C-alpha cells in the first residue's frame, strides 16, 4: 500500500503549482483553472487522510469542496464572460478596478 505521505507530497506539489499559476498568470481563465488545481490538491489530502483513518468524513468533505467549486466556477465563468463582453479581453491587467 502506498504510504499516506506520498499523497500529501503530491497534493503539496499540486497546490504550489496552482498557487504559482494564480499569482503569475494574466489570463483570467487560466487563473480559474489554477484555483481548481488548488482545490483539488486540498481534496486529495482529504481523501488521503480519510483512507488512513478508515472512515468517511474526508470523503464527505471532498464532496462538499467539489460542490462549492462547481458553484464558484459557474459564477466565476459568468463574471469572466461578462467582462469579456464589455472589454473584449480576459487579461486581468486590464481589470484593475479596485484601485478606483
Amino acid at each position, binding site marked *: 500500500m502506498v504510504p499516506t505521505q506520498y499523497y500529501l507530497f503530491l497534493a503539496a506539489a499540486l497546490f504550489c503549482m496552482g*498557487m504559482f499559476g494564480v499569482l503569475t498568470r494574466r489570463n483570467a481563465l487560466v487563473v480559474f483553472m489554477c484555483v481548481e488545481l488548488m482545490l483539488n490538491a486540498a481534496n486529495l489530502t482529504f481523501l488521503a487522510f480519510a483512507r488512513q483513518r478508515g472512515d468517511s468524513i474526508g470523503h464527505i468533505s471532498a464532496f462538499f469542496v467539489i460542490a462549492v467549486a462547481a458553484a464558484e466556477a459557474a459564477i466565476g465563468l459568468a463574471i469572466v464572460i461578462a467582462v469579456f463582453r464589455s472589454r473584449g479581453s480576459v487579461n*486581468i491587467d486590464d481589470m*484593475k478596478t479596485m*484601485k478606483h
Partner: protein
Amino acid sequence: MDAIRQFFMTAPVPPDTLAPSLWLIIALPLLGAFICGVFGRKLGRGNVHLVALGAVAGSFVLSVLAFWAVSHVQGGRPVSLTSSFSFNSVRYAMAHDFGTWFSAGDFRVNFGLMVDHLNAILLLVITGVGFLIHLYSTSYMEHDEGYWRYFAYLNLFVAAMLTLVLADNLVLLFVGWEGVGMCSYLLIGFWYNDAAKAWAGRKAFIANRVGDFAFLIATFLLVLTVGAFQRQADNTNFAPDNNRPERYAQGLSAKGPLTFQGLEAMANALPHEGAAKVTLHSEIVEGPLAGYTFGGVITAILLLFLLGASGKSAQLPLYVWLPDAMAGPTPVSALIHAATMVTAGVYLFCRMSFLLVLSPTAMAVILIIGTLTSLLAALIAFAQDDIKKVLAYSTVSQLGIMFMGVGAGIFWAAALHLVTHAFFKACLFLGAGSVMHGNGDETDIKKLGGLRTEMRWTWVTFMIATLAITGIVPLSGFFSKDAILHGVHHNQLGESLEWVSHLCGILGYVIAASTAFYMTRLYLLTFEGRRSSEARLAHAHESSWLMTLPLVILAVLSVVAAVYAFPLMQLPSGEHQPVFENFLNPVFASAERIAAAGRELRLEHELPHALDYFIAWLIALAGGALAAFLYMRFFPAQAGKPAPAWARAIRRAAQNKFYVDEAYEFVVIRPLKFLSMILYRVFDALLIDTVMVRGTAWVTTRVGSALRYVQTGDAQSYAAVMALALLGGVAYALIRVLS
C-alpha cells in the same frame, strides 16, 4: 417672671422638627438669587426688592429658630447631637444628614448640615446684618440700572456664606468658601464697564485662588491623615469614646473622613500619652505620608489652612486684594468685605479649634501673622485719604486681631470680636456709603468735613461705631478687643514659644493705639471742622430712612453687644465667666480638653482686672487724643507751612502702602510672567502646537503618501502578499515546532 423665662428657654420649634428643614436656610436666598437673576429685569424694581429682602428675612427667621433651638431647650436641657463617631458627644447642637453627596471608593462626602452654638451666632450675623444691608441697598442702588443683577449676586452671596457656616464637613464648607469668593469677585467688579474695577475683582479672585489651593492641599492631607489614624489607632486611643474604634470606623464609612465630628474624635484621641498606640509623636507607617509623625502632618495641614484663611481673610501675605476690593458698591464692602466673608478664616479656625490646639507651632505662626498683618495695615491706614480705603485697612487690621485671638487660643474672644466687628464695621461702611451718597460720591476725606450738622443720623451712628472700634469703654469693640489682647498676654504657647505671646501682646497695644488714631482722624476729617472748600456739593443731604435705619440698628447693636463680654455667668465652681465664653463652651470644650491633655499649651480663662481694662482704655484714649490734637489744633494752625522732609517721606511711604504691591510685582508677578512666557513658548507653542498637533498631521500625511504606491488595485499582487505572509507564518511555525 418665671413664665417669661420659661418661654425663652423653650424653643418654639423643637430641634428634632427643625433639623430636617435646615436646608431651607440656604435654599431661600438661593431661590431669591435665581428669581432675581433670571426674571429680575422683567419683575421691576419693587418686586426684586421684595424677593431679595424676603428671602433673606425668611432665612433670618429660620436662623433665629435654629439659634433658639440650640441655645436653651426645654428648661436648658442640652440637645444631643447624634454623632456617628462617638457615643458621648452630647452638645448643644443639632445636625441633619441629607445623605451621600458623592463617594469614590471608600471616600465619601455627605451633605450634612449642623448648627451648634458657634455657627448659630454666625447665622444670626449673616442673615441679620445681611438683611440690614439688603435694606440699605434698596436705597443705595436706586439709581443703578443693574439693580436686579446686584440683588441676585447679594442673595447668592448670602446663600454661599450660609453654606460655609452650616456645613458639617470640610468639603461642603469649601463649596461655600468658593461660593463667597465668586460672589465677592462678581460684586467687586459689579461696574464692569470701569476697567479699574474689573481689575480689582480679578486681583481679589487670584489672591483668593492662591489661598484656596492651599486649602485644598490641606484637605487632601487631612483625608490621608484620618485614614492613617484609623489604620493605626488601637482601643486605648479612643478612651474618651468608651474604647470603641469600631464606632469610629462606622462613622467614617457612613459620613466620610472630613466631617468635623470625626476630626474632633481623632483630635481627642491623639494627645493621650501612655498606653495609647498612636500619639502626636508616633510615625505614620504606611501610605503616602509614611515616615512623618502625626503631629508634624497636622502642623503642616494647619499652616496650609492658614494660607487658605489668609487668602479669604486678607492676612499677610495675601491681604493686598481687600483694599482694592473697595471698588465695588459700598454695601458690598460692608456685607462681604467687613462683616461676613472675610471672617470665614476666623470661623474656620474656631470650627477646627480642636485640631489647632494640637500644634503650638501653628498657633504661634497664626499669632505672629495676625499681629504683623494688623500692625502693617494699621500703619498704612494712617496715611490713606480715601474714606473706604481707611476702613478697608482697618478691616484688615481688625481681622489680624481676630487671628491673634485664634492663634493665642482665645477662640471665644475671636468669635466675639468677629460679631462686634461685623456690627460696627458694617455700620462704618454703610455710614461711609451714606456720606458718599450725600456728597456726590466724594471719597477723599480731605475734601469733606463739617458733615456733623448736615447729616445728623449718619454723624451719630458713625461716631458711635468709631468709638466702638477705637475701644472707648462702654462700647462693644473695647471689650471684645481687650479680651483678645488680655488673652494674648496671658496664654502660653509652650515653653519655647513664650516670647511669641509676650511680643505679640506688646504689639497688640501698639495696634490698639494706632486703631484709635486713624479712626479718630477719619472721623474728625469727615464730620468735624469746617466744610472743605473743595467739596463737590455746597451742602450735603441726609440719606433716606432706608439707609439711616440700618445705620441706627447697627449702631445700637454695636453698643449692646458689649454685654456678651461681661463676666455675668456663674460656673458651678463659683467663678464667673463672660457670657459669650460660657455660651461657646460646648463648642470649645474639646479644644480645652486636648490642650490640657497635650500639656504643651496653657489656655487661660483669667478675667481682666479693672487695671487691665484701665490700661487698655488709656491706650485707646491716648491714640484718639493724639489724633484729635493733631487734626483739630495742630494741622489747621500749620496750614501753608511745609511739613519737614522726614514726615513727608514717611507719609508718602504709608500712602503708597509701603510699596507692598510694587514688591509683589517685582518678586512674584514679574518672575511668574517670565516663567509663563517661557512655558508658553516652549510647551504651548513648540511642544504642543508644533510637535504634537501639527506634527501628528504631518506624520500622517507623509506615511499616507508613501503607502499610496502600495495600493495597486491588482488582485494578484494582493494575493501574493497574502501568500508570502502565509509562507512566513508557516516558516515560523516550522521553526517553533522543530526547535
